[in-house]
């Protein structure tokens, strides 16, 4: 057969043609394709998503056919048709919508002309034109002046999108009573960005319309309310719309640009400039800078610092509001603005000065030096300093000899390359059916080369090493073979290697398969071989190879700038720029150094090469991250201290990483690139420290202009020399300390902030020096406190403490650092916090307060010291995160009143205040009850909100309870809660005893549903309260208790259930105390407990003499083999339990799951997301921003996550989410910010069971077609048997079931479908992106299928599809296969 890809590409193009054709026979062919698509629904997507390109006659043809064949059941079909007709609203009812289209297109549109439905009105505007132009014009013209508001709205909206005369429509209809109408009307006027992109809309009347609109908009601006107006989505208008004030100015700017009338610009400047906001001003000045006053333009520099949203960062540098270069007179005006405190503005002004002509600059320098103002004098220095420094560096560079060693490297023979390549290919072919467990699950060697585990071990390594060994390649050949494979997989070998070898490589690369083999298999195999057989010879060959590559981009000495650029551009045009090749080879070299394999000769050559790369500014800086190499060269004596020093002095090597202690994770990840991180020799570290101090010497004396070291210093998080710390602090006497020190701009304040934060005293520094210099620099108490709070260094804090000599200083600082709303402190600070408090830093983040610690510091530190720290607390962190610590103090010391908290909680429901409220000193006996009740009420009210808010409020309430518990002297919140719940026992227990009133026994009765009611017994019969007793004070007293007790009942039941799920321990005496409350006792009586591996009822437990117990979970009953017995006990004694305990469903891990990272139990099932979230909310789940539905177990630090495919994203086929796997993640993110997956075997059985129980509930209540766990359950073994059966029955000779895979020999390749995950893959291509589409618009099919399980269905479908791959119709699937 021919190339099916070709055929289908043609077919696809043909479909376009067919769609564009006006011939009915062509249309019939498209219809036939759709009818024959069968279960390949991708065909629909392909045809309907581009319907806007189809001919009108095709569109008219297809609509009735879609209705007839019910194709509208696929979302992509209706959406495609709507889009095809230019209708972009969300279709509510597909069939109704299509019927209307059919009517209009067939001419029966009259019945819709009076419609008030906005979607129908919009449809008429769009479609009438196709059937009756006159009718369309009349209908549209009438709509523009219709009394029906939304009809008018639609007409304007339509005009803004589809009419070329929109400006005049807008002008003619501008008078409207309702502001909402201006939303579509304003859309009729383009904004200035459209003008800049070249969209200019012509109008009749040479600008009269624009001018008229200009004045109308000015007038509208006056009339509009000050705030933006937003109209939410409604029945009539399906999108959010409104009027933003800046939108009007954007339109005005368009009109001004179109009119180009100076007078109008000045008119607008005069009248409105002062009223504009910053963003508008920037735009206005930018657009009309030729007409605008100089002082307005200079003012613009002010906005550089915060107009990120307006200009992208790079963009900023290109925006010059001032003419370039400045003239002397302008510069004088501009110099006044140097007074500003904004360092960025200063920096930009200085840059403008530096760009002036030499003559003007000299004059300006004279002026600035002679000026009285300091800020001007400073700028004068900047004009001199930078130039001199640059020259000095240029001189230094010239002195270094920059030549490249000359080499001829022998290449590998062409025939040898091919021979080795084919042998490796044969190796992969031979083992293609090898199955193994890879890091990502079951894997087939022939499909992809996954590593075995995270350490990067690969399958069949011993065997592949043997094969490579058998080639008997010399070191030179090995180096070249690796290089050749790298070249080959690019497919452009000849560009890099212009010998016949290059051509040969390109020939091999014409087969996609070969390129994939080279990249995915051979390179890793070869690297492994080289690593395990490393030798000096191999390394030497690699160095030579690298240098020969480098020489390819060697730039001749006599090159002009043009030729240099040409060469580099050429190199970049290639699929992978040359320097990437270079980095690949350089990494081989690092290996050599790692294993100490390079001899001195090679090292010297290497050093020379580096020198070349360093000094040639056009050579890519591949050694930027090679501090490790310098360290080695230094250690080996190849480079002396002074040489290394000179090298670093050039400021090209990034030193920011070398001294910041890399984390273990980071070291592991970058072990090749940063091999020496953390283990350099002492002398080398010392050398680097000296270099850094050398750089700091320059940097600390800078003004606004950057120095050559600014970049390095700004990036380093380890700097040395306490003198720089103190000098930087002194500099901040005149500048504001920016609390977020990592601004993009390397301004003086940003870089100095980094110095304050990152300086570590140098080993020769002493406290005495600190003291002396602090005095010399006249640093105030406040300066030093500010620095100590901002710095990350412990010694700095200790020296400041010693210098200030204030008691309790360090402890107070640490208290503030611990109680922040974020984690804004370094790891070392966190470690120190642990010395002061037993509370975990995570808990502090959640809002926990160490009350004891607080009172300790209040005792130790005097009021003045405390206040000094309190007032400067903002320097610890960014934004307002420090406020929490301050408010905690206020609450604890009475600075924040109970009333104030209550008011905030009531009015704004600010949850921070729940925390503060829990800390205010307790007054009187009832105070604690009130607090407890309020927190409980807050929690109860939380139910009305969304899942996410519920979770966060619940968390805050938990922490507040913990705080309150600590305030009341309890060790944990659970104990405290039980104490609170049992508190009223003495008061209420008499109410449960019958009391005779007027001949009736009145008491509180507990129902079998654990609810309390007031009951009367008269003459031995239970009855309602006799009417005569209703006003009896005792009865009234009983009644008032009822609702309180019923709420308590639900609360207690909920927390007991949660205690059972989590296996919380109770002491028996504690249970006895709380059981004094008759209601709680009644609840406890119906439950089972486990103590010492025995199961008890409550009564038995109290008699047993046991001290501690847990509430029995079905898992305990199951493992103690008493489950059936306890069920019988409940039934025979007719005991109802307050929550499911003995009859609770249990979800144990299956054998498959015990070895897996995830469970696929619910994979492939569909859920209605809204319903699922609603159900999940009730079980404590919430939706995350980035990951699916999740439940957080705070104490255990585990997050259970239910993933869905395209969670809340878009799908062409339906609106339901298809479930994927369930994972358990570690709540504490690792260094890279990811939460690691916890293997299922490490998850407790109870937690697993409860999570599965929740999900089972979520799925069964939100499944659109009904779901039953037992019916849908299927295992790998079931699937295996079903597939075998089908293969046999259908006589599929090209399909085999082997292990966990269905293996298929198709016409376009060999495939495998994984029985566990249903993922299909193709040999050497990896996974195929073939989706099973679950169409929730379908009803359940009531037939006795062999298996309903979605994964089985997916496996079988893919198996049948791929077994007959010549019949595949979906072009996207074919592209997948041919990719």
């Amino acid at each position: 057969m021919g190339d099916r890809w070709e055929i289908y590409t043609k077919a696809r193009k043909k479909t376009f043609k067919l769609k564009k054709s006006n011939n009915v026979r062509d249309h019939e062919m498209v219809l036939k394709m759709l009818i024959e698509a069968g279960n390949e629904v991708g065909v629909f997507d392909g045809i309907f998503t581009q319907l806007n390109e189809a001919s009108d006659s095709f569109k008219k043809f297809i609509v009735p056919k879609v209705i007839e064949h019910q194709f509208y059941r696929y979302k992509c079909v209706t959406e495609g048709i709507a889009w095809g007709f230019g209708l972009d609203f969300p279709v509510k009812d597909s069939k109704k919508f299509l019927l209307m289209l059919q009517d209009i297109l067939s001419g029966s549109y009259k019945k819709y002309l009076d419609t008030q439905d906005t979607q129908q009105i919009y449809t008429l505007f769009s479609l009438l034109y196709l059937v009756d132009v006159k009718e369309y014009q009349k209908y549209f013209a009438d709509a523009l002046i219709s009394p029906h508001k939304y009809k008018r709205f639609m007409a304007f909206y339509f005009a803004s999108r589809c009419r070329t005369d929109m400006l005049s429509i807008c002008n003619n209809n501008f008078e409207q009573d309702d502001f909402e109408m201006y939303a579509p009307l304003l859309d009729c006027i383009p904004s200035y960005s459209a003008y800049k992109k070249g969209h200019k809309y012509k109008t009749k009347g040479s600008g009269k319309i624009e001018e008229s609109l200009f004045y109308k908009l000015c007038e509208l601006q006056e009339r509009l309310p000050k705030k933006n107006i937003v109209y939410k989505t409604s029945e009539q208008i399906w999108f959010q719309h409104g009027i933003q004030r800046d939108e009007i100015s954007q339109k005005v700017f368009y009109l001004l640009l179109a009119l180009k009338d100076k007078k109008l610009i000045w008119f607008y400047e005069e009248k409105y400039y002062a009223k504009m906001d910053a963003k508008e001003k920037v735009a206005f000045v930018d657009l009309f800078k030729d007409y605008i006053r100089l002082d307005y333009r200079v003012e613009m520099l002010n906005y550089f610092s915060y107009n990120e949203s307006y200009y992208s960062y790079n963009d900023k540098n290109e925006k010059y509001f001032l003419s370039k270069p400045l003239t002397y007179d302008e510069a004088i005006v501009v110099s006044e603005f140097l007074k500003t405190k904004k360092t960025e503005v200063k920096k930009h002004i200085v840059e403008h000065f530096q760009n002036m002509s030499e003559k003007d600059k000299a004059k300006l320098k004279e002026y600035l030096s002679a000026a009285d103002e300091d800020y001007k004098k400073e700028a004068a220095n900047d004009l001199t300093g930078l130039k001199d420094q640059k020259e000095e560096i240029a001189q230094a560079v010239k002195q270094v000899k920059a030549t490249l060693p000359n080499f001829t490297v022998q290449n590998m023979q062409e025939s040898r390359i091919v021979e080795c390549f084919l042998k490796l290919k044969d190796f992969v072919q031979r083992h293609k059916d090898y199955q193994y467990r890879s890091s990502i699950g079951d894997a087939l060697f022939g499909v992809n080369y996954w590593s075995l585990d995270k350490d990067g071990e690969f399958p069949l390594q011993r065997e592949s090493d043997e094969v490579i060994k058998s080639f008997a390649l010399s070191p030179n050949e090995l180096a070249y073979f690796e290089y050749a494979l790298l070249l080959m997989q690019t497919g452009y070998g000849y560009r890099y290697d212009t010998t016949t070898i290059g051509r040969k490589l390109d020939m091999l690369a014409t087969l996609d398969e070969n390129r994939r083999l080279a990249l995915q298999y051979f390179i890793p195999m070869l690297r492994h071989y080289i690593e395990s057989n490393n030798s000096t010879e191999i390394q030497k060959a690699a160095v030579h190879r690298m240098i020969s590559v480098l020489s390819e981009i060697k730039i001749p000495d006599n090159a002009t700038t043009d030729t240099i650029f040409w060469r580099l551009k050429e190199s970049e045009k290639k699929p992978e720029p040359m320097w990437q090749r270079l980095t690949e080879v350089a990494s081989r070299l690092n290996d050599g150094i790692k294993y100490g394999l390079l001899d001195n000769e090679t090292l010297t050559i290497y050093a020379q090469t580096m020198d070349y790369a360093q000094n040639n500014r056009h050579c890519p800086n591949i050694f930027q991250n090679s501090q490790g190499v310098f360290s080695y060269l230094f250690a080996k004596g190849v480079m002396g201290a002074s040489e290394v020093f000179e090298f670093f002095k050039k400021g090209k090597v990034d030193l920011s990483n070398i001294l910041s202690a890399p984390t273990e994770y980071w070291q592991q990840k970058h072990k090749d690139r940063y091999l020496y991180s953390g283990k350099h020799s002492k002398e080398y570290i010392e050398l680097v420290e000296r270099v850094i101090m050398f750089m700091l010497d320059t940097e600390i004396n800078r003004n606004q202009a950057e120095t050559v070291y600014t970049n390095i210093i700004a990036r380093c998080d380890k700097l040395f020399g306490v003198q720089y710390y103190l000098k930087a602090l002194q500099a901040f006497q005149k500048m504001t300390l920016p609390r977020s020190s990592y601004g993009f701009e390397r301004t003086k304040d940003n870089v100095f902030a980094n110095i304050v934060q990152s300086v570590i005293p140098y080993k020769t520094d002493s406290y005495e020096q600190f003291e002396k210099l602090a005095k010399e620099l006249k640093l105030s108490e406040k300066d030093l406190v500010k620095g100590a709070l901002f710095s990350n260094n412990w010694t700095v804090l200790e020296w400041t403490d010693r210098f200030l000599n204030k008691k309790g200083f360090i402890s107070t600082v640490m208290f503030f650092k611990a109680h922040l709303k974020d984690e804004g402190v370094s790891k070392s600070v966190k470690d120190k916090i642990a010395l002061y408090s037993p509370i975990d830093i995570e808990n502090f983040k959640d809002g926990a307060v160490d009350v004891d610690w607080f009172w300790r510091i209040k005792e130790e530190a005097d009021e003045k010291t405390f206040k000094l720290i309190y007032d400067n607390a903002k320097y610890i962190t960014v934004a307002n995160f420090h406020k929490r610590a301050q408010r905690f103090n206020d609450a604890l010391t009475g600075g924040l009143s109970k009333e104030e908290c209550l008011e905030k909680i009531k009015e704004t429901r600010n949850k921070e205040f729940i925390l503060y409220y829990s800390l205010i000193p307790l007054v009187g006996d009832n105070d604690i009850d009130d607090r407890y009740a309020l927190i409980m009420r807050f929690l109860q009210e939380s139910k009305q909100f969304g899942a996410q808010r519920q979770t966060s409020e619940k968390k805050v309430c938990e922490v507040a309870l913990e705080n309150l518990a600590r305030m009341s002297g309890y060790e944990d919140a659970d104990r405290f809660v039980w104490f609170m719940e049992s508190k009223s026992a003495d008061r209420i227990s008499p109410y449960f005893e019958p009391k005779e009133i007027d001949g009736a026994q009145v008491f509180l009765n507990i129902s079998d549903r654990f609810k309390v009611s007031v009951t009367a017994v008269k003459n031995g019969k239970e009855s309602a309260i006799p009417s005569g007793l209703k006003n009896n004070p005792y009865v009234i007293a009983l009644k008032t208790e009822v609702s309180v007790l019923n709420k308590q009942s639900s609360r207690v039941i909920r927390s007991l259930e949660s205690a059972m799920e989590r296996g919380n321990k109770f002491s028996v005496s504690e249970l006895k105390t709380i059981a004094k409350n008759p209601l709680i006792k009644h609840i406890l009586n119906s439950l089972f407990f486990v103590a010492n591996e025995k199961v008890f009822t409550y009564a038995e437990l109290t008699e047993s003499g046991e001290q501690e117990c847990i509430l029995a979970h079905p898992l305990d009953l199951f493992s103690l083999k008493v489950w059936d017995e306890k069920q019988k006990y409940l039934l025979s004694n007719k005991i109802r339990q307050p929550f499911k305990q003995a009859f609770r469903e249990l979800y144990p891990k299956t054998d498959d799951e015990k070895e897996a990272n995830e469970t696929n139990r619910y994979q492939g099932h569909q859920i209605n997301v809204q319903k699922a979230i609603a159900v999940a909310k009730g079980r404590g789940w919430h939706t995350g921003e980035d990951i699916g539905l999740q439940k957080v177990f705070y104490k255990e630090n585990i997050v259970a996550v239910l993933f869905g495919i395209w969670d809340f994203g878009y799908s062409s086929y339906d609106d339901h989410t298809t479930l994927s796997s369930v994972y358990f993640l570690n709540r504490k993110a690792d260094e890279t910010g990811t939460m690691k997956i916890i293997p299922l075997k490490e998850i407790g059985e109870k937690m697993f069971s409860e999570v599965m129980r929740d999900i089972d509930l979520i799925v069964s209540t939100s499944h659109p077609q009904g779901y039953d766990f037992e019916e849908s359950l299927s295992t790998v073994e079931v699937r295996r048997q079903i597939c075998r059966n089908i293969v046999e029955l259908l006589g599929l000779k090209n399909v085999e079931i082997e292990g966990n895979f269905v293996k298929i020999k198709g016409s376009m390749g060999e495939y495998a479908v994984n029985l566990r995950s249903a993922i299909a893959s193709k040999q050497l291509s990896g996974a195929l992106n073939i989706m099973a589409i679950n169409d929730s618009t379908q009803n359940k099919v009531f037939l006795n299928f062999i298996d309903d399980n979605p994964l089985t269905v997916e496996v079988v479908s893919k198996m049948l599809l791929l077994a007959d791959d010549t019949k595949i119709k979906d072009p996207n699937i074919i592209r997948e296969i041919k990719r």
Partner: protein
Amino acid sequence: MNIRIKVKSVAKLKDFLTYEQYVTTALTVNELICEMVAFNVEKFNKGRKTEDLFLLTNETVENMAGLGKVSFGGKKDNMRKVDVRVMQDEAIFQFKNSRFKIINETKKREYTALDESLEISENDSLIFIKLAMLAGRRF
């Protein structure tokens, strides 16, 4: 006529495929689909009532635990009743659009058209294979 339908049975430990007895009077594929849908719908509409809790013996628990869930019946009727005609139309639509296959296992024959004659004999076994819709991209 008595025929058998092949289905899975996860309760079994080894051989997961088993047969269900089924009585049919259908002569064509169309009739068979309509008949079976009608039969199942009736069962569905009748059978979705609250069942009583049942006790589990330790052995059943062991068995169920191996499958990943131990439960006690007591299902709640939260599904609405369904209409036979709608469900029959749905099944026919899905058959026409290749959403499932019907194979006569005994005669090794796949039925491909609705009006095809079944030509089944006593005790023949049939397999209904459900298929998913497939696409090379989702949007």
